[in-house]
Every structure is written in C-alpha cells, then in structure tokens.
C-alpha cells in the first residue's frame, strides 16, 4: 500500500454533529483508515499534526475570529478542502438569526462589548475557496465516506443533482405535501438523505439546502400558500437552513 493521505478535521462553531457523524461510521471508519492517517481531529484525538494535510474537512460556521484563523490555517495547509455539512456550506440554523452581532451579543451577555471577537456567522464557502461542498445537517455519512474513498483513489467525488422528492418516490412514501398538506421543502431541497423525514410521515425542513441549478422556490412558495400557510411562516421556513429567497 502506498503512503496514506494525511487527514485533518477542523471544527468551527457548530453542534458537533458533522464531526460526530464521522465516528458514526463505526467499522467503516477503519476502512477509511486504510487510506488515511488522522493528523488532527480534536473531538477524537489528542494528537495535533500542525503540518500539511492532503485532505481537510471543515465543519461549522465562521462565528468568531478564532474560527476564521483556524479556517485560513486549514486552507493554507491543505491540498483538498471539503466544506462538510450545511453550517459550512450554507450557514445552517445559526445563520438565520438576522440581528447584527452587536445586538445579539447585547441580548445575551449584556454590555460587555465583544471581548471574545464574535462575528456574524457565515459559511466557510464565503471566506475560502473549497474543493468540494457536502451539505446536510448533518450530511449523509455514506456520502461522506464515498467522497473520501473517491478522493483517495484519485476520482473527483460526484455531486448529487436531484431533489428529496425523487427519493421519496423511490421509497414509495405518500406525498406529505399533497396528501396531508404538511409544509414540505422536499421539491426544492437537495436529495441524498433517502427522504429520512418523509419516512416519519413529516415534511422535509430543508436541512440539505437548495437543489443547485433550476430550483424554483417561487412555485414552492405558491404551493405552501395554497395550503394555507402565511407569508411569514413560509419565509422563515425558507430562511432557516440556506436562506432561500422566494
């Protein structure tokens, strides 16, 4: 076997889910370790490489100056950088709190100013060029596994290009939007989760972000309106994970 690739996992501000999801690969994690040496992964190891990474996975949003420094370091030191999870690709839920950072800090901590250098949360992709973006809150772990294996084999990982609806149809789930009138963002959300929430009989809340390309939030907006949802409700739902504008 040729030399293993050096892997770094960097966590900015987030819920920990996208880092944790790697550990949820269970035995498959050991398959990955056939190809990769983990140099940095602070949730899982006390080692920290500090050197060059062949592949860097970055999770979370840039929400502090520390995050920004860490992100730049990860970018500078790595060959191939993956923005992993909707926080990193679209800002996820924390990106939807619209007040300016100063006001938010004041609401929480009082009049201390900003001694810890908090920033308005932004996805990783707004600060650095990324080589691959894998959304999902959290991303599908099989998808991440496949992407890492592809990269190790020198193949560019494939991007998904179909909505959640397709997976819903393949699974023969009843359409919750048409049949139950539940607010479901499946038609405009990127598939790959195997329609996990529709399996529960509930509407997709859009955690994988927008379907790239010809996505049509305007028609989704009209459908939800016709089901009796008010403007404010729909707009907030649209903004939650990926800040769709209807």
């Amino acid at each position, binding site marked *: 076997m040729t030399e293993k690739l050096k892997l770094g996992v960097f966590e900015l501000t987030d819920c920990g889910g996208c880092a944790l999801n790697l550990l949820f690969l269970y035995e498959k994690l050991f398959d990955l370790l056939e190809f990769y040496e*983990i140099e940095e992964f602070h949730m899982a190891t*006390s080692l920290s490489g500090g050197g060059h990474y062949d592949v860097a996975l970055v999770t979370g949003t840039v929400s502090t100056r520390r995050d920004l420094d860490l992100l730049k370091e990860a970018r500078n030191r790595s060959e191939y950088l993956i923005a992993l999870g909707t926080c990193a690709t679209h800002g996820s839920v*924390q990106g939807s709190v619209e007040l300016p950072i100063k006001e938010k800090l004041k*609401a929480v901590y009082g009049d201390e100013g900003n001694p810890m250098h908090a920033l308005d949360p932004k996805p990783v992709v707004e600060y650095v060029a990324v080589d691959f973006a894998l959304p999902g809150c959290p991303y599908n772990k099989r998808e991440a596994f496949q992407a890492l294996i592809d990269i190790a084999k020198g193949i560019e990982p494939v991007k998904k290009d179909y909505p959640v609806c397709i997976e819903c149809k393949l699974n023969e789930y009843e359409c919750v939007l048409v049949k139950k009138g539940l607010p479901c963002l499946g038609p405009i959300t990127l598939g790959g989760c195997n329609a996990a929430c529709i399996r*529960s009989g509930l509407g997709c809340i859009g955690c994988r972000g927008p379907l790239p390309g010809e996505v049509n939030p305007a028609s989704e907006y009209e459908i939800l309106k016709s089901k009796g949802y008010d403007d404010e409700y729909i707009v907030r739902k649209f903004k939650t994970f990926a800040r769709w504008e209807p």
Partner: protein
Amino acid sequence: MIIELREFTRVEGNGKAEIVIEDNEVKDVRLKIVEGPRFFELLTLGRHYYDVPDLEARICAICYLSHSVASVLGIERAFGVEVPEEIALLRELGLVGELIESHTLHLYLLVAPDVFGYPDAIRMATKHGELVKEAITIKAFGNRIRELIGGREIHGINVKPGGFGRYPTVEELERVEKESEALLRLAKRAVRLFASLEPYGAQAKHFVATDGYLWGEKIISDEEGAFDYTERIEERSLVYSFAKQSLYKGETFFVGSLARLLLKSEMLTPEAKRLFEEHREKLATGYVSYNNLAQAIELVYALEKANEIAKTLLDRGIEGENVPVEPKEGEGIGYVEAPRGVLIHHYRTDSDGKIAYSNIITPTALNHAMMEVSLLEEARKLYGEVDEQAMIHCLEETVRAFDPCISCSVHLVKL
C-alpha cells in the same frame, strides 16, 4: 505568569483554560469557552411552535433528542397538553437510547484512551481492539434507538408536540428487547474498569437533578425538594467565556450522572441499583472524576431500562395515536436529564402558538462554575509537585470527567 492550556481535545466543542500564577502560587483558573455563540433562543423567537423542537435539536448532536424532548415538554406544558403513557414511554425509550450512545462515546472513545495511555481510541484499538469493538456495538445500539424514536441518528424530527410522526413497529421493539439483553454483560465490564480508578478533581458540595430519572416536572437538590430553576439558579456572564456560569443559591453545584445516582438511586433498575450500592461509599465522596464510574453504572441502567420499556410496550401493544394540540397563550418549562445532566427549555407562547419568550440552560453551562473550581483545586494540588506538562495533562482529564458539551453551552440568552 499565565499557563495556557491549549484547546481541550476529546471533548465536544472548543474550549481551553488559563492558570494564573502569582508569587509562585496558583491564584486563579479561567475556563474559557471559545466556541462561538449560536443564539438559539433568538432563533426560535416568533416561530411557530411546531417547528421549534426540530431547530432546538441542532443545539447539540450528541444529545439532540434530549433537546427535542425538553422542547416538546416545554411547549406542551405551555398549552396544557397531557400525553398518554404510550407516548411518554416512547420518549423515555429515546432518552435511554441517547444515554447509551452518549455515555459509550464518552467512556470508551474519549476517556478510556487516558486510562490505557493512548492519544485516541483509534490508536488504542491496535492493542485493545476488543474494547473498541464493544464500544462500537453498544454505541450503534443506542443510535438505533435514537433513529427509531427520533427519526434519524442525528437531528431527527420525529418527536413532536402531542406525539410522533411515526411509531415503532412490533418487530422493531422486539429487536430492542433482544439486543438490550445481550449487551448488558458488556456494560457491566465497563463498571469494573471505571471503579478501579483513583479519584481526582474537586469534591462537589451540591447536586442538582430533575425529579424523575430522565425527565421531571421540577428539579431537586441534595438540600431540598422540588423547585423551579428560576427560584434558585442564577446565571452570570463572564468576559472571558462565551458560556455563562450558573450558581445554586450562590454556590457551585454539579449536574450529571453522579448527581442523578446520588439523588435518585431508588429509581434505578435492579442490576444498576445493586452496582450503585456496591460503590455507594466511593460515589458519595463527590469527587467529580467518579462521574465516569456513575456513567458506567447508568449504562447498565439504560440497557435494563430499554429492555423493560420494550417489554411493557410489547405487552400493551402500540396504538400510535397522537393527542391533539391546541395552541394558546401560556408558559411551560421542560426539564430533561440529558446524558450530561439537567437540561432546561423554558418558553412562553402567544395565542397563535408562536414563541414569545425562550430560555435554554444546558448541563455544561450549569457545570461551568464547578468545572472551573475543579481545575483550580487540581492545579493548586499539582503546581510545583509535578512538571508543567503532567499538570496540564491531569487538568485536561479533569475537564473530560465532566463530559462537557461545549457547543451546547454557548447560546444562553435571557430576554
């Protein structure tokens, strides 16, 4: 002089500490939570109640279901909704699964490497493959329960005010019953391992828990009966940390496995109770490091409990009926025992069922002050006695004993 601890590893989220040395003595320790704030209360403000538990789940991946359930309880109490036993049991099963998943992660993958002298579980696996394999098996089982009840391993949306999107089938429950029984033997081995370790850290003086084993109507302490958090718990902000600190009647206190065992051992399942009695003396000393032993005993509890709940549900059969939820103006607090301790979701709703006020306090925020005191005491004991590297290593272990979940701790807001 200030000794900086680099950012903690093998904990969830980003934090570090500073030890302030003056006149060759440890003067102070500052526990700095550097993870950015995520403003979850602001996020839910003005939102329709139906969507709120799914968003609150995103506070933390390790214990997302505790957040969903606490959120649902807060909302249901605000509306005056009561759910039947079946729904309550299923929620409890989900929380039990989360306890299994989280404690296994912490004990085997994050703490055990310290015990065996490795930087992580992956490298530990070269010599102790059996143990790591056991961990993976138990953890996967906990996650399967989370998926069954919560809808996904991480951030499912199946837990709703008034019930569930989807109810488990008989076959799924039978599987839970069978597997929990098989795994019990492994969990007992973990108790032996963690019982053999010497104590470190500070001794907690106060303990706080909910009044039920995994959720409650109120919280209790070692000193008094049931009360609401607003009566005794006070939060304060710090300039050097994104997390606030909480005090109980002005003093530090401890929440988590150790607190639960010491305050509620009569609610334990048979084998867990026996193990608790066997180690009661040790645990009662209150050393925070015994939290790990307490977690191992709770792993036994959780496996027995999963089995018991599955049996009960199989005996009585699943009806799968949600209760109707009518939004109205109200106020409610959800108290849940997340794996790391008391979790509080407090809401006020308006007549349309929108969130008008929201306050969330997480276990790591409740333990923040206690963690700092522990580091201070430990640093005072060690400074000058061992070299700096060894001291730093011990301090990091002390932090780990709390099983802190830093991401959870940094979005507190009172509005």
